[in-house]
């Protein structure tokens, strides 16, 4: 079957959830990937939405983080202060899924402003939401960001959420208790932090993508692993379930 770049990105993200118990889900691609994973290999995956739904099992993709079906299908519904204080903050949640307008080579994220002047930005983005604490407290973080020179930047205009800070040891120094980003899934491939330097390194490309293309779409000199793997093709089952999910969710 043929597929779009966004589809393989979502499928790769869903696959990355194998073996996880609980996942803190942001809206958009992370939610699509997490719900796809539940339909594929991870039927018991616990989806946690910051609106207070723990163990939500939506039949279609919620358009917002607080759609009614999340509460109706959840194992437990709690208040927003409780979801952050009792569930996210202590580090109970295996994996947090985040996206961003900008990401840098250490997996730090910007969702706040584009432009040099915070008070008078050229683009005002939505802001932090739950991201800073998801990035800080989940045991691991997976990022999903479309790869381009505009989004993969040398220097963030604003650090909204901390990945690996300025490099090795920085998370520990800041008192951030989760591991930080372990994987960045893009429409071109997958980047992982180098175990020594924490710098994001291209470790696989999606079928048909040249590592040099990924480098050209990155705003810093992208490190490329000695062995670059190729993402296995999306299976027919993966694509069918994904398309069904997206179709059922159209407004």
């Amino acid at each position: 079957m043929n597929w779009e770049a966004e589809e393989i990105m979502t499928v790769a993200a869903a696959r990355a959830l194998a073996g996880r118990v609980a996942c803190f889900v942001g809206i958009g691609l992370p939610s699509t990937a997490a719900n796809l994973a539940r339909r594929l290999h991870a039927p018991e995956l616990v989806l946690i939405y910051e609106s207070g739904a723990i163990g939500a099992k939506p039949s279609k993709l919620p358009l917002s983080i607080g759609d009614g079906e999340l509460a109706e299908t959840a194992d437990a519904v709690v208040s927003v202060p409780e979801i952050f204080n009792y569930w996210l903050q202590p580090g109970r949640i295996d994996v947090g899924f985040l996206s961003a307008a900008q990401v840098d080579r250490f997996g730090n994220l910007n969702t706040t402003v584009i432009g040099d002047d915070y008070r008078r930005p050229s683009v005002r983005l939505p802001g932090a939401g739950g991201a800073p604490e998801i990035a800080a407290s989940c045991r691991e973080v997976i990022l999903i960001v479309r790869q381009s020179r505009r989004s993969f930047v040398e220097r963030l205009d604003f650090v909204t959420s901390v990945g690996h800070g300025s490099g090795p040891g920085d998370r520990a120094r800041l008192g951030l208790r989760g591991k930080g980003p372990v994987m960045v899934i893009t429409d071109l491939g997958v980047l992982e932090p180098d175990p020594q330097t924490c710098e994001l390194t291209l470790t696989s490309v999606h079928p048909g993508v040249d590592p040099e293309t990924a480098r050209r779409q990155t705003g810093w000199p992208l490190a490329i692993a000695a062995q670059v793997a190729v993402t296995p093709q999306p299976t027919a089952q993966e694509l069918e379930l994904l398309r069904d999910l997206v179709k059922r969710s159209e407004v």
Partner: protein
Amino acid sequence: MAELVGLAEGIAALVHDGDTVSLEGFTHLIPVAAGHEIIRQRRRDLTLARMTPDIVYDQMIGAGCARRLIFAWGGNPGVGSLHRLRDAVENDWPAPLEIEEHSHAGMANRYTAGASGLPFAVLRGYTGTDLVRHTSSLATVTCPFTGEVLTAVPALNPDVAVIHAQRADRKGNVQLWGLAGVQKEAVLAAKRCLVTVEEIVEELDARPNAVVLPSWVITAVAVVPGGAKPSYAQGYYDRDNLYYRRWDAISRDRDTFTGWLADELGS
């Protein structure tokens, strides 16, 4: 004890120019009708607080009600930007908008401290982010037992909280269920509060995941069926997702927006 009022009467009595106002609702039960009434009554210089300002705050900002915004995430959920919010921040239209920016965890804890009668709350948050450099209402506090340094946020105690709930009884006890967001905390933190409800019932029979706010902590209740549209009221109506998409087109352009404002709210 809560007084039963009309919506216009309730807004006139409770919301004054210059107030800090929280219209809370985390996607669910957003008090949209109350926000529109604030626009109709041409309130000015408000400090609008909310975890997730969405289209009703976009409308209030575009209508010129707000001087300041305290928030964590300002977007059109599932759709994209809030264009009126952006126009205010990027271009001072229709007026400059000061912003005080937090994370969800920080805002939730600010309300929690406010509801608890404490001047501040402690959390693990913000560390290493640029919010620390730009948001003055952040500090650190040292654990007196372990020496660990944590983040402190000040209590948020709005002058007025406005929420929408499914129903109330004749005494003014309010019940809401489904995703309950931070509404209990906002009401308990505020100096006064207005609750719009879908209906008044004789008896608040038990509902799963229900939050009951007793009459004696509520200032006024107004019956406003459909008062949360285009958001949803679980058990009453669904989210009008199409409207959120339509808002993107209406709000993108100043003239379309001012036309909408005149047509819909006579403002």
